[in-house]
């Protein structure tokens, strides 16, 4: 599926302007013009160097995950039990038993609220912090982070650290939202597995990373040498020295030929115990996706989206726990293994402090079980989980009301969440970027408030 195409037919003007910048026209210097300091941001220190967003596509039920309601009638509390965590008084879904033991490292916002209960709109709101409008496509977090970081690197004339792309989606990115919005296409997430390709369970095959039959590194190296020579010949008569380079060709070549970068995708490097801890089963292999995310972050990739589909549980919510007797790979147990392993692994490697882990979807589910034993869309209140990257673990922020229908305390909007995520990642929420027609747009919407309690 083409990510620039969406079923609602909203025409997507891709505002690309940056590519044509020259001394005559536009300047980059003022992309960083911060017009007004956000009053909320001052004392908060940003620790996160990178971010892993575990996107539960379809809208995970808050009641079956991080905000169970054990004391409500059967048709609200649903078929699953709850379990205590290593933080006294905090209970979560029984299926998240391993995650419960890392609760001291986790913060849960139980009072997320949004008016948008449709997949595409909700996804756009949660992934960009802006309510969607037909007038402008907003960039997703990964694109903004990529863009701002690359500008910072340019400013300090440093080079990118890794041959890997800075914004990666595992196994691919959701089709509901343009990855880059109004930012250059180069900031869009790089999908590890092309949408068209059949994925084998737990296997990642990055398209076109392996040599074509009959080719080897010597042939590729010679081809690169030839094409560079041709580019130099044709630009020799030109005063523009920059026209010689083909940065994308170099990036591609470096990725193909860097054993380290290429090796990131090779999960068999990991000890079997590690792979098992993350879990290899499950639909779309969330365990191996999270393991790959860790390997990428370890190699300096700033933003990884783990896209896990199938959370749109209109029927039989119990299938989140098991689809048949002895099923260990249903959505909740798979998530539990992957998430707890990821947090523990990052912690063991002393990477958790600088890696922000977010678990969320586009909305929650209806508090009342429907006639088919499932739950429908419910954006009025839902939960988001955060860990690492300067987040103070062991806390619950806000709460939903008795039946899990609406926020009871401290409502947090997706806009607020975006200001928080950017602040954690060291980006001022009031930073202004520009669309192609010069319209200044803040990275997080005006009025968005940082959830300061989250910070260590």
């Amino acid at each position, binding site marked *: 599926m083409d990510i620039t195409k969406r079923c609602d037919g909203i025409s997507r003007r891709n505002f690309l302007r940056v590519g044509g910048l020259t001394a005559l026209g536009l300047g980059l210097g003022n992309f960083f013009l911060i017009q007004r300091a956000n009053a909320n941001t001052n004392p908060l220190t940003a620790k996160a160097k990178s971010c892993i967003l575990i996107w539960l596509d379809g809208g995970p039920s808050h009641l079956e995950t991080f905000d169970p309601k054990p004391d409500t009638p059967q048709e609200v509390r649903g078929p699953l039990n709850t379990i205590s965590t290593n933080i006294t008084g905090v209970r979560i879904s029984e299926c998240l038993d391993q995650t419960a033991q890392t609760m001291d490292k986790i913060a849960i916002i139980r009072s997320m609220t949004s008016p948008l209960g449709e997949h595409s709109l909700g996804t756009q709101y949660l992934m960009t912090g802006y309510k969607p409008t037909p007038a402008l496509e907003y960039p997703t977090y990964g694109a903004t982070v990529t863009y701002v970081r690359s500008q910072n690197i340019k400013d300090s004339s440093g080079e990118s650290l890794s041959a890997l792309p800075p914004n990666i989606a595992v196994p691919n990115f959701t089709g509901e939202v343009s990855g880059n919005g109004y930012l250059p296409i180069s900031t869009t997430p790089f999908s590890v597995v092309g949408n068209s390709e059949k994925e084998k369970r737990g296997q990642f095959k990055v398209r076109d990373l*392996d040599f*074509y039959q009959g080719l080897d590194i010597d042939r590729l190296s010679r081809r690169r040498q030839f094409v560079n020579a041709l580019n130099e010949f*044709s630009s020799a008569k030109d005063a523009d020295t920059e026209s010689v380079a083909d940065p994308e060709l170099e990036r591609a070549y470096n990725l193909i030929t860097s054993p380290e970068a290429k090796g990131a995708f090779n999960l068999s490097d990991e000890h079997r115990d590690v792979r098992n801890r993350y879990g290899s089963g499950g639909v779309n292999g969330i365990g191996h996706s999270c393991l790959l995310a860790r390997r990428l972050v370890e190699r300096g990739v700033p933003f990884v989206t783990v896209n896990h589909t199938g959370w749109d549980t209109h029927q039989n919510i119990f299938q989140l726990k098991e689809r048949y007797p002895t099923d260990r790979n249903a959505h909740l147990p798979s998530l539990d293994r992957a998430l707890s392993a990821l947090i523990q692994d990052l912690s063991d490697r002393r990477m958790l402090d600088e890696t922000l882990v977010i678990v969320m979807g586009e909305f929650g589910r209806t508090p009342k079980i429907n006639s088919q034993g499932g739950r429908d869309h419910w954006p009025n209140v839902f939960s988001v989980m955060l860990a690492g990257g300067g987040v103070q673990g062991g806390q619950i922020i806000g709460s939903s009301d008795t039946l899990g229908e609406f926020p009871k305390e401290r409502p947090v909007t997706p806009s607020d969440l975006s200001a928080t995520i950017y602040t954690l990642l060291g980006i001022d929420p009031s930073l202004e970027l520009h669309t192609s027609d010069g319209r200044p747009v803040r990275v997080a919407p005006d009025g968005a408030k940082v959830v300061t309690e989250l910070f260590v």
Partner: protein
Amino acid sequence: MKKRQSVEIMSILTTILFVYCLVLPNISFADEYSSHIVPSQANTSDSTYVVDFENDLIPIFTKFGCNAGACHGSAAGRGELNLSLFGGNPQADYQAIVRQFSGRRINLIYPDESLVILKPTAQTKHGGGQVLNENEEAVELLLNWIKQGARFNTQRELDRVEITPKKQIIQDLEASIQLRSIAYFSDGTTKDVTRWTVFTPEDTSTIKIDTTTSTAKMVRPGRHIILARYLTEVIPIEFISPLNTTPIDNTNLDRTSSQSGNTTVIDSEILKLLATLRIPVSAAADDATFLRRVTLDLTGRLPVPDHVTAFLADKDLTKRERLVDTLLQSEEFNQYWTLQLAKLLRIGGQNGNSQGTLVYHRWLEQQIQNGVGYDQITRSIIMAVGDSHQVGPANFYRTTKSAGEQAEFMSELFMGARLRCANCHNHPLDKWTQDDYHGLTAILAKVNGNDQVVKVKPKAEVIHPATRETAIPRIPGDRYLASDVDGRAELVDWLTSVDNSYFAKAIVNRLWKAMMGRGLVEPVDDFRSTNPATHPVLLADLAKDFVKNGYDLRHTLKRIAMSDAYARSVNTLPENVNDDRFYSHALKKQLPPEVLADAISDVLNVPDLYGDEPEGTRAVALIDPDTESEALDILGRCVRESSCETANASTDGLKRKLHLFNGELLNARIGVIGGRLDTLIESGKFPMEILDAFYLAALSRNPTVEERVFWKQHIDDYASAASQQRVLEDMVWSLLTCNEFVMNH
């Protein structure tokens, strides 16, 4: 202190002058007034001055950002105060400030305790923080206004604003330029409103504005625009600073290319601006480059090798013009320009209605083939009704999902104007109002394109969101139409009338961009007075000449193709290397995805497969933009939900380059049996001959001496056949990947 005294003296003078104006309103002081430096507003801060809500206070709200989109000007307002964007609706703003919440924002007894004072000066909690100082002149005006009863008090209307300078050529970057703004009112009065005019550079990195003195300083040379905003008026100011210190002489140029007298306006206008900017022009492109460029631009194909050889050998001085004529009359031109216009018209975006797409595309091809004027094509499209499976242009009304979207699409397509901003509020940078947007929508709503058979429904209506009443059909910026008739004929008459200022300019600007790599107005669908053309006289001339010649696309394309500017080399000089819009050198253009896919197939002489189409089908001939094709997935597609004018078609560059290295697009085809490489090897050609053949096919030229030297180091005549084949494959791969191949240059 001294300065302050002089200001006071001046203010007394101004007051006298002002009073004089009031006494003798018939005498116009405009000229004298604007040529003297008069401190503005000195009179209005006098407590006897009667404050005028619309003309005195709204500009304050604009100046301090109160009614900007990020604050109270946003559609939903902010903090329960909702102002119209940039003060577009003063009556509503007055209601909001004075009447809303039982008038709690105004305190007539204790004026300085009014919320409208306390909030912006941050004496009480204000979400936007402090935007005004208590001793600010603006606060004084606000206070005086409340003391006077907080009345609307607007007896005059703004006629126009005159900004000086309008265009400034700057030799010394250090110079501060005083900007001035004089308002002319309907009652004959004028006022220096420099203080209350907002000056914003389009690009803040090029010009710095000192807001307290209203002076501008250029930071970088070039041509830059400042927008001046006062009330509803937005006026562009052009700043030009030469890029080089010494004057240049572009008069003594190689004029081999131009034969037709028509080109003079194009070239004289371009050279005139280049002289002002002191940018020298690059040399003329050689024959081989010109042949490749114009063949790609007009037919979307590379010239065939035999044609290259023949053209280079041709000694006739008129060969370029003959070439252009031949190309314009070719089948290939029809095919390629049908594709170009099909993208513009978004043919194929009709919700997978393949029959509709087919007849629409075929119809368009017929028009191009028969040389039908663009005005006629437009008329047929706008007036179309009937079964969209049989009547091609009827699919125009099935392109978008609502009348509003159709109005946006149509204004961008035929007027080059973005009416879309005027959906929710009057266009902040242009004259378009919500009446224009919903008026055009009302005309188009009378055509029902929801079903296969497109029908006129004269009774259909739309609701104007501001008035909540039926929107009156309206030709944008022109006049209202009767409510219950089909207004399309009037609309198309207006659009295609000789003096319409949008229609012809919008299309010739697109033709210009297709040939020259950049529109005279850019973006091409964003014509407005605040986004002036780089070469306004040239644009006007192109449009006039286009109209005079029967709206003939070929005529204008030929005019551009025969200009010196078109025929310049892409190679830059140190003095013009930074020029990306004044045409001192030709601009490189990325080959469109379909053209590139065809070019690869042509060079390799191995056809590609597209969906179920017969073998040999060219990518540029595909009617369905979603036809299955790995090549187009990699190289980019134009999904016809937009007109693909903003270069969004290409896929992620990294993915594409990875595929070129390791994917099938090139690797599976370079050495294939029966392909060009295989045929040349089998026929016993020497490696260097094969090299020459590929240079001719891919780059439309022979290798240079240096290139031959380079290739000789790598191609060994005595190597084994296998190793030679590998080197040649790598050579072909690099030719198909290099910048010179993937660009039209």
